[in-house]
Protein backbone atom coordinates (compact mmCIF):
# COMPACT_ATOMS: atom_id res chain seq x y z
CA UNK A 1 0.00 0.00 0.00
CA UNK A 2 1.35 3.40 -1.00
CA UNK A 3 1.10 5.87 1.90
CA UNK A 4 0.61 8.85 -0.39
CA UNK A 5 -2.29 7.15 -2.16
CA UNK A 6 -3.78 6.16 1.17
CA UNK A 7 -4.21 9.84 2.01
CA UNK A 8 -5.04 10.83 -1.56
CA UNK A 9 -1.98 13.04 -1.78
CA UNK A 10 0.52 13.55 -4.62
CA UNK A 11 3.67 11.50 -4.21
CA UNK A 12 6.26 14.18 -3.56
CA UNK A 13 8.54 15.43 -0.82
CA UNK A 14 7.04 18.93 -0.56
CA UNK A 15 3.89 17.78 1.17
CA UNK A 16 1.05 19.90 2.55
CA UNK A 17 1.23 18.59 6.10
CA UNK A 18 -1.96 20.40 7.14
CA UNK A 19 -3.84 18.54 4.45
CA UNK A 20 -2.11 15.32 5.48
CA UNK A 21 -3.29 15.81 9.06
CA UNK A 22 -6.82 16.53 7.87
CA UNK A 23 -6.94 13.38 5.73
CA UNK A 24 -5.44 11.37 8.55
CA UNK A 25 -8.14 12.42 11.01
CA UNK A 26 -10.79 11.62 8.44
CA UNK A 27 -9.43 8.13 7.82
CA UNK A 28 -8.95 7.57 11.54
CA UNK A 29 -12.63 8.30 12.11
CA UNK A 30 -13.70 6.00 9.28
CA UNK A 31 -11.61 3.04 10.36
CA UNK A 32 -11.66 3.47 14.12
CA UNK A 33 -12.06 -0.01 15.71
CA UNK A 34 -14.88 1.32 17.93
CA UNK A 35 -17.03 1.62 14.83
CA UNK A 36 -16.67 -2.09 14.24
CA UNK A 37 -17.66 -3.17 17.73
CA UNK A 38 -20.71 -5.04 16.47
CA UNK A 39 -19.09 -6.31 13.26
CA UNK A 40 -17.77 -9.81 12.64
CA UNK A 41 -14.53 -10.98 14.20
CA UNK A 42 -12.82 -10.77 10.79
CA UNK A 43 -14.01 -7.22 10.16
CA UNK A 44 -12.95 -6.20 13.65
CA UNK A 45 -9.48 -7.61 13.09
CA UNK A 46 -9.21 -5.89 9.71
CA UNK A 47 -10.24 -2.54 11.15
CA UNK A 48 -7.57 -2.82 13.84
CA UNK A 49 -4.98 -3.61 11.18
CA UNK A 50 -6.18 -0.77 9.02
CA UNK A 51 -6.07 1.72 11.89
CA UNK A 52 -2.49 0.66 12.66
CA UNK A 53 -1.51 1.08 9.00
CA UNK A 54 -3.05 4.54 8.92
CA UNK A 55 -1.08 5.56 12.02
CA UNK A 56 2.13 4.18 10.59
CA UNK A 57 1.55 5.94 7.26
CA UNK A 58 0.80 9.26 8.93
CA UNK A 59 3.88 9.22 11.14
CA UNK A 60 6.05 8.28 8.17
CA UNK A 61 4.82 11.09 5.95
CA UNK A 62 4.55 13.72 8.66
CA UNK A 63 8.27 13.86 9.51
CA UNK A 64 10.67 15.10 6.79
CA UNK A 65 13.35 12.50 7.59
CA UNK A 66 10.90 9.61 7.56
CA UNK A 67 9.11 10.94 4.47
CA UNK A 68 12.44 11.22 2.61
CA UNK A 69 13.44 7.72 3.69
CA UNK A 70 10.11 6.37 2.52
CA UNK A 71 10.41 8.11 -0.86
CA UNK A 72 13.91 6.69 -1.29
CA UNK A 73 12.52 3.27 -0.49
CA UNK A 74 9.83 3.76 -3.16
CA UNK A 75 12.62 4.66 -5.61
CA UNK A 76 14.40 1.43 -4.67
CA UNK A 77 17.35 3.17 -3.00
CA UNK A 78 18.88 1.32 -0.05
CA UNK A 79 19.70 3.68 2.79
CA UNK A 80 21.23 1.31 5.30
CA UNK A 81 24.85 0.79 6.11
CA UNK A 82 27.75 3.18 5.85
CA UNK A 83 28.90 5.39 8.67
CA UNK A 84 30.22 8.44 6.86
CA UNK A 85 28.15 9.26 3.83
CA UNK A 86 28.24 12.95 4.74
CA UNK A 87 31.22 15.07 3.81
CA UNK A 88 34.03 16.07 6.18
CA UNK A 89 33.08 19.74 6.18
CA UNK A 90 29.60 18.91 7.45
CA UNK A 91 30.97 16.64 10.18
CA UNK A 92 33.43 19.32 11.22
CA UNK A 93 30.57 21.80 11.47
CA UNK A 94 28.58 19.30 13.55
CA UNK A 95 31.56 18.95 15.86
CA UNK A 96 31.76 22.73 16.24
CA UNK A 97 28.03 23.00 16.90
CA UNK A 98 28.30 20.26 19.52
CA UNK A 99 31.24 22.04 21.15
CA UNK A 100 29.35 25.33 21.19
CA UNK A 101 26.34 23.57 22.71
CA UNK A 102 28.48 21.90 25.37
CA UNK A 103 29.94 25.31 26.36
CA UNK A 104 26.61 27.07 26.51
CA UNK A 105 26.11 26.60 30.25
CA UNK A 106 29.26 28.67 30.87
CA UNK A 107 28.24 31.37 28.41
CA UNK A 108 27.63 34.82 29.98
CA UNK A 109 24.25 34.93 28.25
CA UNK A 110 23.18 31.35 27.59
CA UNK A 111 19.69 32.32 26.34
CA UNK A 112 21.07 34.44 23.52
CA UNK A 113 23.79 31.96 22.66
CA UNK A 114 21.32 29.09 22.58
CA UNK A 115 18.94 31.02 20.37
CA UNK A 116 21.72 31.86 17.90
CA UNK A 117 22.74 28.23 17.82
CA UNK A 118 19.17 27.03 17.32
CA UNK A 119 18.69 29.58 14.54
CA UNK A 120 21.75 28.19 12.81
CA UNK A 121 20.42 24.66 13.09
CA UNK A 122 17.01 25.74 11.78
CA UNK A 123 18.53 27.54 8.78
CA UNK A 124 20.65 24.53 7.88
CA UNK A 125 17.59 22.29 8.23
CA UNK A 126 15.50 24.50 5.96
CA UNK A 127 18.18 24.52 3.26
CA UNK A 128 18.36 20.73 3.32
CA UNK A 129 14.58 20.36 3.19
CA UNK A 130 14.49 22.65 0.16
CA UNK A 131 17.26 20.66 -1.52
CA UNK A 132 15.42 17.41 -0.81
CA UNK A 133 12.32 18.79 -2.53
CA UNK A 134 14.36 19.54 -5.65
CA UNK A 135 16.23 16.25 -5.53
CA UNK A 136 13.05 14.18 -5.34
CA UNK A 137 11.47 16.20 -8.12
CA UNK A 138 14.46 15.56 -10.33
CA UNK A 139 14.68 11.91 -9.14
CA UNK A 140 17.73 11.10 -11.26
CA UNK A 141 20.12 8.51 -9.80
CA UNK A 142 22.54 11.30 -8.92
CA UNK A 143 19.87 13.40 -7.22
CA UNK A 144 18.64 10.42 -5.23
CA UNK A 145 22.15 9.68 -3.96
CA UNK A 146 22.49 13.32 -2.97
CA UNK A 147 19.12 12.95 -1.22
CA UNK A 148 20.55 10.03 0.81
CA UNK A 149 23.35 12.27 2.00
CA UNK A 150 20.83 14.96 2.90
CA UNK A 151 18.74 12.47 4.89
CA UNK A 152 21.85 11.67 6.93
CA UNK A 153 22.52 15.36 7.44
CA UNK A 154 18.95 15.91 8.54
CA UNK A 155 19.33 13.13 11.10
CA UNK A 156 22.44 14.79 12.53
CA UNK A 157 20.65 18.14 12.64
CA UNK A 158 17.60 16.61 14.34
CA UNK A 159 19.85 15.05 16.94
CA UNK A 160 21.62 18.30 17.77
CA UNK A 161 18.31 20.16 17.81
CA UNK A 162 17.04 17.59 20.29
CA UNK A 163 20.10 18.15 22.50
CA UNK A 164 19.66 21.91 22.24
CA UNK A 165 16.02 21.51 23.33
CA UNK A 166 17.13 19.47 26.32
CA UNK A 167 19.63 22.10 27.39
CA UNK A 168 16.96 24.73 26.90
CA UNK A 169 14.61 22.82 29.22
CA UNK A 170 17.37 22.42 31.76
CA UNK A 171 18.44 26.07 31.69
CA UNK A 172 15.00 27.60 31.82
CA UNK A 173 13.03 24.81 33.47
CA UNK A 174 10.12 24.94 31.11
Amino acid at each position, binding site marked *: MNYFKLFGLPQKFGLDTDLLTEQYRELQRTFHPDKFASASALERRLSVQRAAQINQAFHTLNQPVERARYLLELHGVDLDGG*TSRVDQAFLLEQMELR*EALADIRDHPNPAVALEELTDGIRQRTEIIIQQLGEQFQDASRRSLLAACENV*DKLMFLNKIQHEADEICDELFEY
Partner: protein
Amino acid sequence: MAYSKKLIDHYENPRNVGVFDKKDQEVGTGMVGAPACGDVMRLQIKVSDEGVIEDARFKTYGCGSAIASSSLLTEWVKGKTLDQAAEIKNSDIAEELALPPVKIHCSVLAEDAIKAAISDYQAKQQSDDGREEEVA
Protein backbone atom coordinates in the same frame (compact mmCIF):
# COMPACT_ATOMS: atom_id res chain seq x y z
CA MET B 1 21.90 -3.73 30.23
CA ALA B 2 25.12 -4.48 32.09
CA TYR B 3 28.25 -2.75 30.82
CA SER B 4 31.74 -4.05 31.44
CA LYS B 5 34.08 -2.46 33.99
CA LYS B 6 36.51 -1.48 31.22
CA LEU B 7 33.79 0.29 29.28
CA ILE B 8 32.59 2.21 32.32
CA ASP B 9 36.17 3.14 33.20
CA HIS B 10 36.83 4.56 29.72
CA TYR B 11 33.52 6.39 29.79
CA GLU B 12 34.08 7.92 33.23
CA ASN B 13 37.80 8.58 32.75
CA PRO B 14 38.24 9.02 29.01
CA ARG B 15 41.92 9.02 27.93
CA ASN B 16 43.50 11.51 25.56
CA VAL B 17 40.54 13.83 25.15
CA GLY B 18 41.51 16.93 23.23
CA VAL B 19 42.61 18.39 19.97
CA PHE B 20 45.78 18.78 17.90
CA ASP B 21 46.25 21.50 15.34
CA LYS B 22 44.59 20.11 12.25
CA LYS B 23 46.97 22.00 9.97
CA ASP B 24 50.07 20.55 11.61
CA GLN B 25 51.97 18.49 9.03
CA GLU B 26 52.55 15.58 11.41
CA VAL B 27 48.88 15.37 12.46
CA GLY B 28 46.25 13.19 10.80
CA THR B 29 42.58 13.91 11.52
CA GLY B 30 39.69 11.50 11.10
CA MET B 31 36.13 12.82 11.34
CA VAL B 32 33.34 10.29 11.24
CA GLY B 33 29.70 10.23 12.18
CA ALA B 34 26.80 7.84 12.54
CA PRO B 35 23.59 9.44 11.28
CA ALA B 36 21.31 6.90 12.97
CA CYS B 37 22.36 8.01 16.45
CA GLY B 38 23.82 11.41 15.56
CA ASP B 39 27.22 10.54 17.02
CA VAL B 40 30.21 12.53 15.85
CA MET B 41 33.79 11.43 16.46
CA ARG B 42 37.09 13.18 15.84
CA LEU B 43 40.26 11.13 16.14
CA GLN B 44 43.70 12.62 15.64
CA ILE B 45 47.15 11.05 15.49
CA LYS B 46 50.58 12.66 15.71
CA VAL B 47 53.04 10.72 13.60
CA SER B 48 56.86 10.72 13.78
CA ASP B 49 59.12 10.89 10.71
CA GLU B 50 59.58 7.14 11.09
CA GLY B 51 55.84 6.60 10.65
CA VAL B 52 55.15 5.76 14.29
CA ILE B 53 52.12 7.18 16.08
CA GLU B 54 53.56 9.16 18.98
CA ASP B 55 50.38 10.58 20.39
CA ALA B 56 46.62 10.59 19.84
CA ARG B 57 43.62 12.71 20.79
CA PHE B 58 39.90 12.30 20.42
CA LYS B 59 36.63 14.08 20.98
CA THR B 60 33.37 12.20 20.68
CA TYR B 61 29.83 13.45 21.03
CA GLY B 62 27.76 10.36 21.45
CA CYS B 63 26.82 7.52 23.75
CA GLY B 64 29.08 5.93 26.37
CA SER B 65 30.06 3.09 24.06
CA ALA B 66 31.20 5.49 21.34
CA ILE B 67 33.23 7.49 23.86
CA ALA B 68 34.79 4.36 25.35
CA SER B 69 35.58 2.91 21.91
CA SER B 70 37.44 6.02 20.80
CA SER B 71 39.17 6.44 24.17
CA LEU B 72 40.43 2.85 24.06
CA LEU B 73 41.57 3.33 20.47
CA THR B 74 43.75 6.33 21.34
CA GLU B 75 45.53 4.17 23.92
CA TRP B 76 45.99 1.33 21.49
CA VAL B 77 47.41 3.29 18.57
CA LYS B 78 50.19 5.00 20.55
CA GLY B 79 53.56 3.45 19.67
CA LYS B 80 52.12 1.62 16.67
CA THR B 81 53.19 2.15 13.08
CA LEU B 82 50.51 3.37 10.67
CA ASP B 83 50.26 -0.12 9.18
CA GLN B 84 49.81 -1.70 12.58
CA ALA B 85 47.18 0.88 13.56
CA ALA B 86 45.30 0.28 10.30
CA GLU B 87 45.02 -3.38 11.26
CA ILE B 88 42.94 -2.69 14.37
CA LYS B 89 39.51 -4.17 13.83
CA ASN B 90 36.27 -3.02 15.31
CA SER B 91 35.79 -6.55 16.67
CA ASP B 92 38.98 -6.13 18.76
CA ILE B 93 37.49 -3.01 20.35
CA ALA B 94 34.08 -4.61 20.81
CA GLU B 95 35.67 -7.61 22.47
CA GLU B 96 37.93 -5.61 24.79
CA LEU B 97 35.03 -3.46 26.00
CA ALA B 98 32.50 -6.32 25.86
CA LEU B 99 30.14 -4.13 23.85
CA PRO B 100 26.56 -5.41 23.70
CA PRO B 101 25.38 -6.33 20.17
CA VAL B 102 23.32 -3.11 19.79
CA LYS B 103 26.49 -1.07 20.41
CA ILE B 104 28.80 -2.81 17.95
CA HIS B 105 28.32 0.07 15.51
CA CYS B 106 30.16 2.34 17.98
CA SER B 107 33.30 0.25 17.54
CA VAL B 108 32.82 0.37 13.76
CA LEU B 109 32.79 4.15 14.03
CA ALA B 110 36.11 4.06 15.92
CA GLU B 111 37.69 1.80 13.30
CA ASP B 112 36.49 4.15 10.54
CA ALA B 113 37.93 7.08 12.48
CA ILE B 114 41.46 5.67 12.75
CA LYS B 115 41.39 4.68 9.07
CA ALA B 116 40.27 8.20 8.14
CA ALA B 117 42.99 9.75 10.32
CA ILE B 118 45.66 7.59 8.69
CA SER B 119 44.53 8.46 5.17
CA ASP B 120 44.36 12.15 6.09
CA TYR B 121 47.95 11.97 7.34
CA GLN B 122 49.12 10.10 4.24
CA ALA B 123 47.37 12.52 1.90
CA LYS B 124 49.10 15.38 3.69
CA GLN B 125 52.53 13.82 3.22
CA GLN B 126 51.88 13.24 -0.47
CA SER B 127 50.75 16.79 -1.13
CA ASP B 128 53.81 17.98 0.80
CA ASP B 129 56.10 15.84 -1.40
CA GLY B 130 54.40 17.39 -4.40
CA ARG B 131 55.15 20.88 -3.17
CA GLU B 132 58.81 20.05 -2.59
CA GLU B 133 59.14 18.73 -6.10
CA GLU B 134 57.57 21.86 -7.49
CA VAL B 135 60.05 23.98 -5.57
CA ALA B 136 62.96 21.85 -6.81
